[in-house]
């Protein structure tokens, strides 16, 4: 109360802000925020407004156009049909493998490295490799034919499966890395506690580890799904870009780069982002139904 006159209002504000968690350290956010606002938000707003300024028709006519054309509208379904199972498989396959990778054993470092290395392959090599390897005269079919498992080469490229495999190859390492880190955030003591309570390994997993892992899996699924949803080069290279793998980003690409209809392309891209957001919102809403607090393992 003594002699703090000029300080008063300032201190008052500081106190009010401090209570809400606002203090000096938030300056650290500023560079990143400025950066993203300057280089992303502004151009992105441009794309957004562009989508409401179609070459002809009212502000929403490009959106209407997209949804009134079954061929275009169908791309959403096609994309989901590829991206959802691929993301799901990536996440689900990562779980048991990551589960096995807990604890210490010899060669763990090597195995982890090998599991992460496919990150480096890139879309093009994956696509070329799939065409070569799974193609009608590729080694895969040759082995099948040579062992008389099939009489005719199995067609695994230029259709749904080609794209699917390429998404698995590129998406799995991501999913694996993330799942592994979430899994190791769960205190292994919990599973031991379940064991002393009479749970065999299957029930330990389903009743204890899995429910605790679910939030992490949801996040991983979201990230993998985003990667898979924007699948583009491989949909063209190893898929059937005119038909069953005509994904939504291909529709946007054609609008932008074949028809040079940027407003329409923006509109499609917005729809694409919206669909992604919807799926992510659904997954995150489901995630919030699971227990999301500390799982004991992390600092």
């Amino acid at each position, binding site marked *: 109360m003594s002699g703090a006159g000029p300080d008063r209002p300032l201190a008052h504000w500081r106190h009010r802000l401090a209570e809400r968690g606002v203090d000096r350290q938030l300056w650290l956010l500023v560079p990143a925020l400025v950066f993203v606002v300057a280089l992303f938000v502004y151009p992105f707003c441009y794309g957004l407004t562009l989508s409401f300024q179609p070459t002809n028709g009212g502000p929403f006519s490009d959106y209407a156009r997209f949804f009134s054309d079954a061929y275009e509208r169908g791309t959403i379904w096609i994309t989901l049909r590829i991206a959802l199972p691929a993301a799901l498989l990536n996440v689900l396959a990562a779980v048991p493998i990551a589960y096995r990778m807990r604890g210490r054993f010899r060669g763990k470092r090597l195995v982890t490295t090998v599991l992460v290395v496919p990150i480096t392959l890139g879309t093009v090599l994956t696509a070329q490799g799939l065409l070569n390897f799974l193609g009608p005269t590729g080694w895969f079919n040759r082995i099948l034919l040579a062992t008389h498992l099939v009489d005719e080469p199995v067609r695994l490229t*230029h259709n749904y499966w080609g794209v699917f495999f390429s998404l698995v190859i590129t998406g799995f390492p991501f999913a694996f890395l993330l799942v592994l880190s979430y899994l190791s955030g769960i205190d292994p003591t919990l599973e031991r506690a379940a064991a002393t309570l009479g749970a065999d390994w299957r029930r330990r997993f389903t009743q204890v580890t899995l429910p605790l892992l679910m939030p992490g899996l949801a996040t991983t699924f979201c990230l993998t799904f985003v990667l898979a949803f924007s699948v583009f080069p491989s949909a063209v290279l190893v898929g059937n*870009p005119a038909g069953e793998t005509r994904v939504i980003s291909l529709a946007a690409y054609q609008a932008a780069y074949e028809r040079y209809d940027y407003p329409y392309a923006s509109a499609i891209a917005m729809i694409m982002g919206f669909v992604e957001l919807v799926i992510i919102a659904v997954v995150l809403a489901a995630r919030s139904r699971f227990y999301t607090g500390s799982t004991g393992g992390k600092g």
Partner: protein
Amino acid sequence: VGCGAPEAPGQTSGDTTGEVPQRPGKPVTLNVLDVAGNLQLTQGMIDEFVAKNPEVISRVTYSKAPAPELAGKIKAQQGANRVDIGLVLTGVDGLAAGIEQGLWIDLLPTFQDRLGGMRDYLEPAAAMQRLAGNAGVTVTYYPSGPLLEYLPSRLATPPTSADALLAWAKANPRRFQYARPANSGPGRTFLMGLPYILGDTNPKDPTSGWDKTWAFLKELGQYVDYYPSGTTETMKNLANGTARLIVSTTGWDINPRVLGTVPKEARIATIDGFHWVTDAHYAVLPKGVSTDTQAAVLALLAFMLTPEQQAKAYDEGYFYPGPAVQGVQLSSAPQKSQDAIREFGRPEYDALIAGHPTEVPLDAKSLVAAFSRWDREIGGGKVKQG
């Protein structure tokens, strides 16, 4: 600050509007962007020009990119008033896209007199030039296709008519292949050539004039296993026996055999009454380049259109024959080029080129419409059956 288009006027990067001098005031650095694979044919010409005329072009840089993204990049540069690409080498698609967006400088008729070589265009090349309007200058030309290609060891007598092709495909299901037209030169040529072969009402109007073509493709599609996403793969399938009969062009016939992707003994066949659907590469200048650069590029183009330089366009049959102007002999081409064409070229091409009418391809809009319809009805149609 609203969310308006970021195309507010900025400062110019040098004089872009005034009078274009005969020679640049000082030597320029030229950035060439190739989106058509044209440098394979013309880089030798450009290098030679730069070597001979250092006072015009002091340095040249090359970059290459797939065509579709071209417009976006030029737009971005023009929106910011900083165009640093001096010369774009492009095919019909990139050219048309730029015209529609107003990206290119109209070189004609303003600079007609500086480009004397244009008077000596081969007739079909001249037709391609007319297609380009005033923006592009044809630098290389070839008659393209449609041709059929097969291995004599696997297929003794290829079909020679449209009906025979259909019958053959029916008799040999999954053995006929062509790539998705949007991704493939031969596929595209086949698509555009069919209306002439089938005698459609308006071969230039895919929406309403191609009834027979669409019906034919649909029926043919029943016997096609799948449409690869690139010509390379049809070639590979031909080589490994998965496909017996594929669609090709002159360049795609010769060059892959030179490269070894297709066995040397592969043969071509033609369909009765086919018209060549020609193709060409163009040189264009984006709006916003300085007058000095414009002057330098014009001088370069004039040089490139001389017969001696055009002979380099024979290459290894990549764009066979290649030259756009008359009177260019194979014998004046580089030795390597001559050797390749002698070994892998086909004597019958001269007769075929002479004996069949040439047609310019569809304009960009119609072509996109044709692709789109093909995707919806032919390529996409495959799905529902399989």
